[in-house]
């Protein structure tokens, strides 16, 4: 089921209406049933996978606690089952194609079997979430749960099931186990997130996505047209993915749950490390805690540290998809981090960034703006690698120069850029507003003026959805991962 469908609206209203009439255990049963309906709505056979993953991880965690001497075996079972499923469904064809290519280069021609099934939606997200549970139990940071129901709800909780944010067991499981009470301020803020999320998806992401798709469908883009398309894609992927997160967080609040933030205005980042503290936070912290730090993190000697960074980012790139361009994208960001010697990668932000405001002298402001612009330009190069799946096309695109473009192509590039920029103004306005106010105290009590402005914004967003929603409805980008 997808968020921007009437089916979801009806489903969600029904679930919320029943949910608050039930006791805590009944709520969890309802959440599990609802989550399985949500996930198996189009392809019921996907449920076999998530149910298997849940049962295996539940038993593995219980086994670790009951038989501590064999905890490594149980951990291995959990890893093998989760990564086995992920590897089989997501990477089998990629692996087979590459083996075939390598053998063909050596003069051996084989036809490896091809897996002709659809990649189960969200498998990368829920396997990582399930893994966080067993790893935390293995490390002794979390006790194994006795209730299979609670673990199953934790893994399958529908608002964030197919595209995150990936939740840690230590954060979400206690919420699953606790009594939940309906809170009006919580519901109001949830409604805010949902309205903003739908606006970002239907008005911004889907409209600029059409521009990006058109440009990346061209055989012979010019420099200006290509980068206008990359800019459009940068807006699309941020608006699209953060929209999913907002709708997930908003709908969770209506069920009494809080999910972690996944985006913190990433295009306001000033350094690569800063970017990764703001982009897909739940995934980057997952890789930090379960890959980077176990490898030795930043405390390792220079060469080892560099290796740790690269390994982490290569895996992060590969997580996104079974294609070399994602690996390249991961490597690019790893190299960026190494080049800027961001020692505090994925750690707490340094003080000068934590208070990143535009206040102060004009010169200081200019520096900040230059840093943000420079980092955004670097990010765009990354998005080119991410969006363009053909390696030879990436090379061709990077060789494009503005002085070879025709005047007409320059005008078309400018037109596309302005069009994408126009749609993205609300995103930029929100990010700049948040950056300017960062560090300022948040008012606890909401005034009527603020409530009125919010009501106005809701209405404007809904009106915009009615008249500006794209005629081309695109799936959420991160569904494919």
């Amino acid at each position, binding site marked *: 089921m997808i968020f921007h*469908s*009437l*089916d979801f609206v*009806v489903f969600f209203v029904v679930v919320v209406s029943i949910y608050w009439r039930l006791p805590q255990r009944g709520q969890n049963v309802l959440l599990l049933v609802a989550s399985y309906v949500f996930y198996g709505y*189009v*392809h019921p056979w996907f449920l076999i996978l998530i149910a298997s993953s849940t049962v295996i991880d539940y038993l593995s965690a219980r086994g670790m606690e009951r038989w501590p001497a064999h905890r490594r075996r149980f951990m291995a079972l959990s890893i093998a089952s989760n990564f086995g499923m992920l590897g089989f469904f997501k990477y089998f064809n990629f692996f087979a*194609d590459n083996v075939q290519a390598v053998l063909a280069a050596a003069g051996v021609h084989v036809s490896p079997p*091809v897996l*002709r*099934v*659809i990649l189960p939606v969200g498998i990368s997200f829920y396997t990582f979430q399930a893994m966080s549970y067993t790893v935390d139990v293995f490390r002794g940071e979390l006790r194994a749960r006795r209730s299979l129901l609670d673990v199953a709800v934790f893994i399958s909780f529908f608002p964030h099931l197919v595209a995150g944010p990936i939740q840690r067991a230590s954060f979400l499981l206690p919420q699953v186990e606790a009594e939940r009470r309906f*809170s*009006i*301020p919580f*519901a*109001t803020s949830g*409604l*805010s997130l949902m*309205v903003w999320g739908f606006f970002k998806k239907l008005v911004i992401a889907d409209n600029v996505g059409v521009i990006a798709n*058109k440009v990346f*469908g*061209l*055989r*012979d883009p010019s420099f200006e*047209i290509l980068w206008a398309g990359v800019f459009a894609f940068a807006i699309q992927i941020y608006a699209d993915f953060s929209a999913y997160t907002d709708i997930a967080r908003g709908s969770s609040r209506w069920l009494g749950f809080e999910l972690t933030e996944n985006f913190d205005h990433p295009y306001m980042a000033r350094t690569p490390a800063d970017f990764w503290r703001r982009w897909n936070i739940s995934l980057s912290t997952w890789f930090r805690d379960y890959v980077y730090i176990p490898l030795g993190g930043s405390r390792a000697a220079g060469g080892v540290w560099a290796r740790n960074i690269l390994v982490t980012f290569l895996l992060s790139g590969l997580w996104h998809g079974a294609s070399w361009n994602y690996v390249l994208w991961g490597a690019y960001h790893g190299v960026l981090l190494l080049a800027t010697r961001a020692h505090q990668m994925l750690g707490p932000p340094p003080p000068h960034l934590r208070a990143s405001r535009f206040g102060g002298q004009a010169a200081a402001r200019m520096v900040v703006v230059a840093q943000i612009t420079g980092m955004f330009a670097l990010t765009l190069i990354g998005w080119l690698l991410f969006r363009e*799946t053909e390696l030879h096309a990436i090379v061709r695109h990077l060789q494009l120069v503005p002085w070879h473009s025709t005047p*007409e*192509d320059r*005008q*078309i590039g*400018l*037109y596309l850029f*302005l*069009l994408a920029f*126009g749609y993205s103004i609300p995103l930029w306005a929100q990010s700049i507003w948040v950056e300017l106010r960062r560090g300022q105290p948040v008012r606890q*009590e*909401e005034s*009527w003026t603020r*409530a*009125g402005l*919010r*009501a*106005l*914004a*809701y*209405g*404007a967003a*809904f*009106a915009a959805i*009615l*008249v*500006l929603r794209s*005629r081309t409805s695109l*799936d959420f980008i991160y569904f494919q991962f």
Partner: protein
Amino acid sequence: MTTASGIRSLRHLLLSAAGLLLIPLALRGAAAIHPIPNLQPSYLPSLEGPRERVPFDASRPAELARMQPAFVVIGDSMAGSRIDPAVFARTSGQSVAPLLYAGSGPAWWYLVLKNWVIASGIHPKAVFVFFRDTNLTNVMFRIDATWSLDTAALAREDDLNAVVARRKGSAFYQVRSAFDRLYGATEARRWIEPAVNEWPARVMFPYRKPREAFMRAVNDRFGLDHLRPMDAADMQATEDREADFGAFVDKSQLPLMLRDAQRAGLRLVLVRVQRRPIGGRPPDQSPALQRYIRELRSYVEGHGALLLDDTGDPAQTLELYEDGDHLSREGRRVYTEMFAERIRLRLP
């Protein structure tokens, strides 16, 4: 939370909900800024309200009657990039009438069959309708731009309207159009959407003529000649939702096409084109899609028509393709010759 703050929070929530639902009513005022002249009742009232329309093109059935073609080809760019009428006519030795419209959908195909072909009174050897996967049971496919149906539609199209109503009876369309009607969104969208999408061109070219020339140049820049081969990666995920023959056939125009063709004594041949091969292999087909095609074949053949399925044809290799599922110029020639030969064997 204290009672006072609880009540305050509740009021804020209600205010938000009121803003959400009431402020868009301003769109009714926005719709009135640019009222639409020459409104006429739509022939698809279940889909839309009154609007301007392009007149029915009565010259088309007259032309067909004069031409008396042996073969009629109906379809969108899938047919257009596969069938070269001149090559088909030469290879088959028969006259061919192509009735093609890039970007058209099954509603247009049905209207063309009924109002142009059957109305012309001709009796060709076969009428071919080209389609992809589940197009034939998805009447909503490309129906949004209803103006594109105008030249093939009469003043009333009750049968088509009925299937559209049944199909969009799938709540989604009813709710969406109820909202659109309530807020006057369709009328407001008619001028707000172009205004938003054309603002950069208005800034760059303040005068109308150069602006229109520029917009034509933009369209040409993204025309077929500039596109590159693309993996039809959207194939499965999108199609599977539609790959339920039993659920959708009675909510589609397919039974109407078969009925009208049978009554008119026409031999209808539905041609499922092969989508773009991937990795040197025929395109993947989900189990649901395979089942759908089996059911489609059985239904079509049970109603006196023929289904030709290109999928899996080893001769239709990737080399024939240009972009997406379209064939290249050379691929079109090769395909047309193969098709003519196939037709010669199947329809002697």
